[in-house]
């Protein structure tokens, strides 16, 4: 349990970043932290249960719209909470239906849900305000956003570790291994899946609510960007889905590497990034996590 104490200096250093460096370094780290939070929230549920979800985009977008709608009426920290609750509520509601499906059917269905959410919000906005897109006047300062996302990333890691150790984590792993067998062993699969799915969604929603403050102008196509959901899955797979560290390392390396390549090779960085992805899956099939020394037998498989 004393494990986390050795991370305190790193956390303190990260929290001090806005005062030590320039705005670009902060925003670069912010991108890393955003994907750390999203990837950890994804792996929290999808890692043990093996339900490959592409709904991250939907939750992120719903969170972002909470900020877009609420900013100016409610204090921003409350909107983060609102984004988390709205995303978790949506997850619990749609989860009742979609969590019955398995494998790729579930993956494609959750993708469809993200697209549906985009178009529903688009239509709602049009019928309410006659236009799409919202201008955020008086958005929070960048440093506040950075600290909020840092807190969310840390909270996601802590929550994931707690979840995986507890009975819910065991139940999710049981479902991932053999859902029918888990059901006969006294697990209520739907209830367990709903809880996990909603918890993961809450973090994605809060991250969306936090990030929206950065973009002066919000419209459905920018916040329900399918790239966010796909990139999250990609990061976890490149990092390794069996341990939390995999998601964290994947998010940091992927964000920094794509930024570095984009700056260094502005015309063909995506070709390089693509080749690196292919090479990584060929030569590091178990993810970047396999490069780390395996200190203690991770109980999560």
């Amino acid at each position: 349990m004393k494990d986390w104490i050795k991370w305190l200096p790193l956390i303190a250093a990260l929290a001090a970043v806005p005062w030590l460096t320039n705005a670009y370094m902060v925003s670069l780290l912010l991108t890393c932290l955003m994907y750390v939070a999203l990837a950890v929230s994804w792996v929290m549920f999808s890692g043990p249960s093996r339900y490959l979800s592409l709904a991250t985009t939907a939750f992120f977008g719903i969170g972002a719209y909470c900020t877009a709608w609420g900013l100016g009426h409610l204090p921003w920290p409350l909107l983060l909470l609102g984004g988390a609750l709205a995303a978790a509520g949506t997850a619990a509601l749609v989860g009742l239906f979609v969590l019955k499906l398995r494998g790729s059917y579930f993956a494609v269905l959750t993708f469809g849900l993200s697209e549906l959410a985009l178009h529903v919000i688009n239509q709602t906005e049009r019928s309410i305000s006659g236009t799409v897109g919202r201008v955020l006047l008086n958005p929070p300062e960048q440093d506040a956003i950075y600290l909020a996302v840092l807190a969310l990333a840390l909270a996601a890691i802590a929550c994931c570790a707690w979840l995986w150790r507890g009975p819910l984590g065991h139940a999710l792993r049981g479902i991932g291994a053999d859902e029918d067998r888990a059901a006969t062993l006294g697990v209520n699969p739907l209830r367990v899946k709903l809880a996990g799915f909603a918890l993961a969604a809450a973090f994605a929603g809060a991250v969306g609510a936090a990030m929206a403050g950065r973009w002066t102008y919000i419209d459905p196509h920018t916040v329900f960007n399918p790239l966010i959901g796909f990139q999250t899955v990609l990061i976890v797979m490149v990092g390794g889905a069996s341990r939390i560290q995999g998601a964290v390392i994947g998010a940091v390396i992927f964000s920094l590497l794509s930024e570095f390549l984009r700056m260094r090779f502005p015309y063909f960085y995506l070709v390089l990034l693509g080749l690196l992805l292919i090479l990584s899956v060929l030569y590091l099939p178990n993810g970047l996590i396999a490069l780390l020394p395996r200190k203690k037998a991770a109980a999560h498989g």
Partner: protein
Amino acid sequence: MLRNSICIAASLLGLAASTAALADEAVRIGYAIARTGPFAGGAQVSQEPNYLLWAEQVNAKGGLMVAGKQRKVELIGYDDRSDTETVVRTYEKLMNQDKVDLVLPPWGTGQTFAVATLANKLGYPMIAPTASSKKLTDMKLPFVFTILQQPDQMMNALADMLVAQGVKTVAVVHVDDLFGLENVDALSKALASHNIGLLDKKSYPLGVKDLSPVLKAMKEKNPDAFLGITYPPDTILVSKQAREIGFNPKIFYAAVGTAFPLYKAQLTGNTEGVMGMGSWNAKTGAAAKDYFAAHIAKFQKEPDRWASAHAYASLQILQQAVEKVGLDRARIRDAIAGGEFQTILGPIKFKDGMNASIPGTVSQWQKGEFEVVWPKTRATATLVSPKPAWN
């Protein structure tokens, strides 16, 4: 582990900064623009080619005259992936980390929005050539200027032209994003004030692939004019499909992309009389003619007859402002806000951050050229109405 990555990132960025410093004395001008993703099509037709062309021309003449000294221009351009977070982060890098001398805007209304407050806060003047939104101009950011005509200007000009042609009824389709909705809003108001009847109004989503059922229904209602607030692929789609079903109202207008050379290529022999958003062509003036020729010489393709020239003119304005006051960005801003500049589109000055010299315009394809036909002060040819039948 995170600390390591910070170090790695820091050293990488340091590397980038030091290579930039090597280009001694050059005026460093940074930007991010869509080279990939959904915005790339527009950005690579109307905007980035003009940045490259201008820099090449300035350097060929010895450089930019800064405080009595000629200095070369060095463009630092990145891909923004058509992604909002990426564009914000890249401008933060350009302004905070690389500390470039000047920045140029990204492509499109949404991306301009995302960086406008940042540029304004850090005091970088920015003249946006492809941003068209009341929401943006209403923010009245002192450092942000728009040089393209705004929705109400374009739509008022369109409505005035319709009145002059005796149009009584119209049918409208529009894309349901910010651009489409703001324009259609301005259009509806203008039509109502002129008592022009709106027989049908349909919206469609981005990336639509078939609008023939909608067009057929409009044909049944027999309006005097068809008005499409459309993007390039949909502009071509509605034109082709209107031709297929023989929908040929007196006025046929489709917004963005009619001004593209691609439109002529795709509608082979069927462009005659089609109207759209355009503001200039090589006949606009001697400078416009030279620009037209230089664009073809460098890129082996014609510039589009709307935003391209505005993009190039924005650079001319920036250049003249720098040559007048040097590289002090606050003074450049004041010079842009207060001065009048000679450009390929004629003299331009700004009022409330908007282009006050070029009114809303309507252009029309005539004999293979996209001619400005409205208002008369900007016209390069006389308007032809009614539109001849499709071939």
